[in-house]
């Protein structure tokens, strides 16, 4: 009975998200291996093994989550959201220091990074909010105030850690979800102007010294070759030197010689471009596009609004990370420190993306399984 049921489930189970993400991950793990194999430090050169383990773990979590009914998820959306806000507050007071920022809290043997999970919690909260109230029609400035608070409060808490990248991603996710739900074009324009003004204000008063410097460096990368703009320049050199077909697997000179710091985290895309060139990028971006359109296709094929919003939210997490990371390493955007989904090294982000894939799969399965 159970076995028969199991096979029935397997037959109807939507593996597409797992397959696409795994494909990107395979590219990512090869690239990570290439970027780190030349390191003198044994810890760094074995990072790819850790990454494989972390990805397996994240997939497993995602797989478990895929068996949650979306309706159950909807019921727990608010508790999840508020608990996460509580954790963010806790980080500010009890967090562990690391690399100049307070981002973690210790939960027994685990290090928890509430800002990572906040991305998902925000989506769940927003989806719940937009479905419970009758916000089906267009959003204007007035009706946007309350839902925006749901995004701005955690975003502020995250920026205060300080983690500008994640904070901005939270806001971007909110805007994409809001746009999907029905943001008026007029409102978008007004928000754009407000955003510009507040952005300037924040630069002036709200940013830490190193954050300001990063933006200055972005605007003027040639300023100090070994100073602020150093990463930006080295990243561009790495990418540009790849030309059309790249220098070849394991042939990155920039990575193996430590010209590019953080070459296994934020700058993996530079190394990928150096080794595989424009051709490689076409392939990789193609994979990402397949993933994003799979999300979009799912979003419009479900019948439940809550589900649809969650899918768009999940997609926006992937999308913003991808586009901001690629934009910053190619020198189009300031270096804010966001990982490239499934390519960059790091357990927390892998787990987030694993959960996202689980959520999408769960929603997809809901159409047929439950």
């Amino acid at each position: 009975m159970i076995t028969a049921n199991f096979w029935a489930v397997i037959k109807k189970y939507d593996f597409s998200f797992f397959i696409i993400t795994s494909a990107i991950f395979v590219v990512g793990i090869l690239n990570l291996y290439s970027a780190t194999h030349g390191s003198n430090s044994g810890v760094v050169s074995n990072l790819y093994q850790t990454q494989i383990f972390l990805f397996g773990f994240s997939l497993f979590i995602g797989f478990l989550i895929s068996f949650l009914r979306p309706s159950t998820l909807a019921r727990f959306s608010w508790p999840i959201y508020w608990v996460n806000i509580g954790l963010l507050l806790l980080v500010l007071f009890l967090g562990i220091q690391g690399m100049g920022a307070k981002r973690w809290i210790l939960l027994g043997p685990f290090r928890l990074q509430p800002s990572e999970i906040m991305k998902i919690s925000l989506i769940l909260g927003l989806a719940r909010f937009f479905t419970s109230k009758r916000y089906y029609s267009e959003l204007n400035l007035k009706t946007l105030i309350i839902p925006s608070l749901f995004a701005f409060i955690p975003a502020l808490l995250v920026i205060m850690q300080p983690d500008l990248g994640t904070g901005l991603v939270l806001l971007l996710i909110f805007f994409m979800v809001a746009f999907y739900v029905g943001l008026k074009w007029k409102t978008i324009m007004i928000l754009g102007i407000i955003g510009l003004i507040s952005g300037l204000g924040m630069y002036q008063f709200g940013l830490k010294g190193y954050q300001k410097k990063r933006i200055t460096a972005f605007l003027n990368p040639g300023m100090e070759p070994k100073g602020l703009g150093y990463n930006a320049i080295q990243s561009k050199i790495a990418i540009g030197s790849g030309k059309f077909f790249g220098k070849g697997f394991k042939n990155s000179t920039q990575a193996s010689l430590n010209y590019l710091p953080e070459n296994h985290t934020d700058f993996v895309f530079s190394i990928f471009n150096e080794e595989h060139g424009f051709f490689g990028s076409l392939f990789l971006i193609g994979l990402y596009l397949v993933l994003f359109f799979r999300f979009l296709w799912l979003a419009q094929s479900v019948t439940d609004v809550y589900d649809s919003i969650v899918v768009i939210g999940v997609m926006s997490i992937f999308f913003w990370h991808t586009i901001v990371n690629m934009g910053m390493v190619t020198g189009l955007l300031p270096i804010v420190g966001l990982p490239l989904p499934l390519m960059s090294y790091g357990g927390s982000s892998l787990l987030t993306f694993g959960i996202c894939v689980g959520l999408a799969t769960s929603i997809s399965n809901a159409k047929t399984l439950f």
Partner: protein
Amino acid sequence: MLQQENPVKDYKSRVTIIGNIVVFSFAIILARLWFLQIHNGEQFLKYSLENILRKENLRAPRGLVLDRNNKILIHNVPRFDAIIIPQYLRNKNTSLKKLAKIIDLPVSRIEKILKKNSIQARYMPVVIKKNISMKEVAIIETENFKIPGISVRQFIGREYPEKEVGAHLLGYISEINRKQIPKLRKKYNYVYRPGDHIGQAGIEEVLDLHLRGENGHQIVEVDALGRARRHVGADKLFKGIINRPFKRGSNLRLTIDKDLQMVAYKSLEGKVGSAVVVDVETGEILAMVSRPSFDPSQFGRGISHEYWNSLITNENNPLLDRNIQEHYSPGSTFKTVTALAGLEEGLIDEKTEVKCKGHIKFGNRRFHCWKRGGHGKVNIYKAIKESCDIYFYKLAQILDIDVLAKYANMLGLGMKTGISLPREIPGLMPTKKWKKEYTGEKWQRGETLSVVIGQSFALTTPIQLAMSYAALANGGKVYRPHYLKEIFNNDGEVVEKNSPELIRSLKFKPKTLKILKKGLFKAVNEKKGTAYWFRGRGLNMAGKTGTSQVIRIASDKIYNKCEKMEYKFRHHGIFVSFAPVKNPKIAVSVVVEHGCHGSTAAAPVARNIIDQYMRTYQPETRSEILAEEKKMAQRVSKQ
């Protein structure tokens, strides 16, 4: 559950817009990648290569210098500097303290050096102490793992095994100074680079272009921190980048005999002076030493303050090569030249006799013979043998100064010998014209009397005396003195061979030369000869002593004992000789400053040198001579 009929349908248009946003965003990224990789790819590739390549210079080892018997005079040895790579220092204070103790340098001094070099590229070693001892190297090497950042670095040291012996001839090397670069470019048409070590004196200077070889370079891959990682190999990325190996300098074989030179140097122990030995038939220099001297090894890599100060404050100037860079009145050694002029001009002959009463009056001035009471009847042999001044004063009265100068010049006196060494001075042979030009006054005949005995204006360098006596010994051939036999590369192939250069062949009457040789032989080998007591055994030496006055001595004081005078006023002792008389091989010129007499001070040096020469090169002739001397002694004792 559904409040509306599939409300999600309302979002369909928004999904399309989001889809467009996604596509548009990636289009921008791809456009940017196109711009970076295709449009500017070539340039970025160049940057990425430049990023990681560093040119490291490879210093070519200088050539070796060997003596005529292939014994080493200059070679290269590994030496070490104590260095710090500041970025590797862990516990700075204790590390510096430890290093300070090992190399015996105050911590404050090390800190000062570090501070001075704090702006240089990272991970470049800072040299703290140059040329440390092997003991210090060993300590640092064994302690190295305990004090990271402190290490030793090897370099090629220039070593002169004989140290002070012959240092002036060999010269030394040191780092080029900025002013020299344009000067040398003009002179040699060769572009030296800052940081090059070049010969600054002696052979090292003159033959620098041969000795220096060619520096090479290798391209090394470095990481972002400037640490060298590996040498660039045949990687396809580095196509077209080639290393250039260094080319060793050429080696030199000199005419010097190391052992002979050592004897010369040791014989001058405790004295200020010089000795030069030349081959009379070729002009080859067999030995050339000057004292006090210096240790050229000390110059190679930053001479120490203390050592440099000790050299330049030494009033005897150890850096001066007395053989070619100092001139002295030739004293009585010049009487040979005067005799030559007299004989050749027919003013005197073998039978000419002069009565020496110990003094002579010329004009209203009284000229003294060195021997109070005089020599009695004097012919040319006795005049040379016993160095009778009166004989030559008499000759001076009928000998024109310009004629004398002509003969002196023919022998190369009062002019540069043309030896290929820097800063040779000419000395002086006065003429009427010279005096007119130099002082504006007319030549006084009385002055000729001083010149014929080698005083007053006449000035010669020791090497000139050696070359002139060599010419007398070999029948009138004046050679350019030289020290280089051949230049050969590292495969032992001779690249350049130096042959004797005959400057002048003088046609003197054989009779004249015979008389002079006989006189010079008597001066050494017959009783009452000025150098009789220093004749040695088995040498068959001919020679002439000389005393070079440092100050003009009042006539009432000329018989005062020289040794009682203040050191700096004492006469210089000179002795010039050649041997063996029957078939002359070498000529030796010795000067001992403030040695008072040519006989006591200088002659023993020449005797030791010739003795060493005869033992090494003429053992058969020597035993023949010894046998003859023995026979002679028996005959004398029988009488």
